[in-house]
């Protein structure tokens, strides 16, 4: 395997020198037959297709169902590396929940002047309907998926805090299931921490967040899906199945006796906790988008009255908004009194004159993003831009600096994949999954590693040729 000089490779930090967590795997691999491995890889694909772990592609002939490519080389993380990530994630998630409570109640952080008011007042992710709502158990983000990238031995950065409805956990579980079936011998040689308890933990975590007012003996949990045509339907069904919860759609639900209830073969059954995979805007046509066919009219009223738990709470998007991201270290300090354990990607807010000067001077090395943009629109990738594009962007930047933030282009670490010629390094990121209940924060050891399968590419999104890998966190 050839080592790329400019990027940190998680297997071969320096050429020829295998890093500790990968030593056992590397020796095993050396003795494997490439042909056999490639066959295994094909088996894995057939397996994924049979169980139906596909995502739908809209706008294509008869809603094409695609597989996300799976690479059979695991990404391996050492115990002490994970321990640090875990502490950092927990700190971050606790601060985010404290922030959400505050921002929808007294707004002390604004009064204290720690973040500018405009950041909230002018932000579409702020959900006024959440003002004064007390979520059962005080939990806003029951499920989070924190996106991390690595650039060096000790350098992890948080790229995004996904606290709306993060997806991908079914891939974490199915990837592991597949690896266990294909390479049982590896699991006997290495102490890989299991991820399989996630659905039971999710169930318990959601049950622990149930409202006190429930008329049920045991909390009734259901998963709300937009339906079988949603791109993440597989995951919705998978999680409901694994948790032993009902999978419901809008037309299964009604308001009954002041609660949300689902229509069963024997009448209506009251739901205590709804793990909803429907976006805020569609959740309640009586409160938000009146044309929504995916939501439950009146559910926000039931929520405000304290008769149901919504996971995640509506309005959590204000905490993972791009404009707010650069203030996360301040937010962590404000609510926990501690320094942030995990680093943010350095961000220049162009609204600040010094930052703007720096950005203008280094435009060709930076990524500049619109504060409220998403999906890569209105973005400048300095190193890839032409002189003309740079000049045009500079003009926009000078005209309305407050509309932009800038970040350095990150040198994402690489992990090998199985290519035709054997192992080849590709860029990766990592999304660990976090569960928050009134009593605790639990982080499943592992997560979803997304990998850019194209050589040199830094884009790991599945919609653009990205694949996934199993992520192994080693025990002590």
């Amino acid at each position, binding site marked *: 395997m050839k080592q790329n000089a400019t990027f940190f490779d998680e297997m071969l930090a320096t050429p020829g020198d295998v890093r500790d967590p990968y030593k056992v795997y590397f020796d095993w691999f050396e003795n494997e037959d490439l042909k056999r491995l490639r066959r295994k890889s094909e088996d894995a694909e057939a397996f994924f*297709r*049979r*169980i*139906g772990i596909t995502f739908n592609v809209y706008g294509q002939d008869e809603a094409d169902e695609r597989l996300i490519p799976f690479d059979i080389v695991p990404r391996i993380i050492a115990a002490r590396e994970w321990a640090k990530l875990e502490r950092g994630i927990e700190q971050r998630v606790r601060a985010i929940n404290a922030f959400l409570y505050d921002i929808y109640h007294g707004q002390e952080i604004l009064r204290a002047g720690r973040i500018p008011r405009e950041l909230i007042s002018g932000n579409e992710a702020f959900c006024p309907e959440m003002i004064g709502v007390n979520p059962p158990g005080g939990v806003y983000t029951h499920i989070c998926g924190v996106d991390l990238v690595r650039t060096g031995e000790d350098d992890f950065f948080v790229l995004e805090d996904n606290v709306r409805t993060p997806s991908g956990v079914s891939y974490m579980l199915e990837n592991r299931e597949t690896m266990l079936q294909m390479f049982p011998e590896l699991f006997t040689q290495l102490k890989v921490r299991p991820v399989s308890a996630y659905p039971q933990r999710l169930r318990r975590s959601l049950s622990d967040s149930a409202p006190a007012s429930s008329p049920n003996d045991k909390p009734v949990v259901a998963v709300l899906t937009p*339906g*079988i045509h949603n791109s993440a*339907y597989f995951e919705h*069904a998978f999680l*409901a*199945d694994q948790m032993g*919860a*009902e*999978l*419901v*759609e809008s*037309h*299964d639900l*009604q308001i009954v006796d002041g609660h949300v209830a*689902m*229509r*069963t*073969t*024997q*009448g209506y*059954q009251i739901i205590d906790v709804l793990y909803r995979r429907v976006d805020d805007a569609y959740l309640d046509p009586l409160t938000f988008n009146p044309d929504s066919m995916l939501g439950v009219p009146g559910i926000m009223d039931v929520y405000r009255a304290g008769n149901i738990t919504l996971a995640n709470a509506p309005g959590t998007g204000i905490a993972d908004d791009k404009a707010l991201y650069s203030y996360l270290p301040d937010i962590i300090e404000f609510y926990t009194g501690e320094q942030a354990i995990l680093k943010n990607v350095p961000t220049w807010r162009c609204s600040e004159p010094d930052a703007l000067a720096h950005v203008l001077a280094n435009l060709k090395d930076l990524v500049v993003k619109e504060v409220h943009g998403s999906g890569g629109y209105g973005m400048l990738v300095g190193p890839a831009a032409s002189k003309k594009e740079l000049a045009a962007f500079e003009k926009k930047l000078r005209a309305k600096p407050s509309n932009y933030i800038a970040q350095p282009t990150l040198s994402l670490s690489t992990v090998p994949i199985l290519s035709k010629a054997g192992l080849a390094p590709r860029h990766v990121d990592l999304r660990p999954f976090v569960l928050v209940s009134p009593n605790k924060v639990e982080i499943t050891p592992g997560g979803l590693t997304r990998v850019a399968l194209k050589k040199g590419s830094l884009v790991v999104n599945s919609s653009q040729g990205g694949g996934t890998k199993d992520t192994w966190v080693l025990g002590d």
Partner: protein
Amino acid sequence: MMLGKTAGGLFWMFRYLERAENTARLLEAGWRIALTRSSNSENEWRSIVTTAGMNVGYEEKFDSYTAANVINYLLRDKDNPSSVMATLDQARSNARMVRTALSSEVWEATNECWMSIKAELARPVSERNLHDVLMAIRFRTSVVRGALHGTMLRNDIFCFSRLGTFIERADNTARILDVKYYVLLPSAAYVGSNIDNAQWEVILRSVSAEQSFRWLYTGSISPMMIADFMILDRRMPRSLAFCYNEIGENLRLLEETYGTRQPCQDQSDAICKLMRGHTVESIFQHGLHEFLGEFVKDTTALSSAIEQNFRFYG
């Protein structure tokens, strides 16, 4: 506890699977006739399409009944919402919807059934590979049934699945008989020609019962025997009596599970009672066509009563 929608999804998933299988059997019977008889195959194909209930749509698209057109229309034509492919699409959609109620073996069998038949039907089916395609359909749907029997709990999930299967099957057998009822009339027996023997064979073949019929009835065959076999014989897994026996049994199990008797169970019991009170002679006296017509109507009414009583829809 089960969602009403889930009960409905299971019911329809198995109705559609049964329907796909029945259409394949019907085509097989038609194909057999076309192979063994040279003249007037157009009439045979028409009667196959009519039995499948797709003649209106077919005639909008084609002027004549030819083997190639009928085969492709019934199996895979995009303009035919009841084609085997469309029916399997529906079965799988319902299976996806109720996935949390299915064992992984049943889900995977259903998904594999859909994937492999979709691949088989991706291109036009020629007379040469028709046999293989029909075999594949029968085989794949059998695997789903096998997985259902081998891996599912005998609870309400199983009951709704079976109700879907037997409502569809009862309806299908009754329709086959009704389209061909005239060849079963006593007067037809006197004709005693080969044509009628061939017609009887189509009837038996389209429910894959020619072999079991031969085991039970040796010597001279009369249309009355065929009618008796297909309507009242409880040993025969596609007879109307057999289907209603199963429907009654599954509704009884639901009553036991839920502790409530639903009105649809009275309807089902009434139909069972009616069947037990009949002999094949009394049916012919009553009028075979009338009997079948009422049976189809009652079965449709029972199906919608099940939908309502168990809250399939909001």
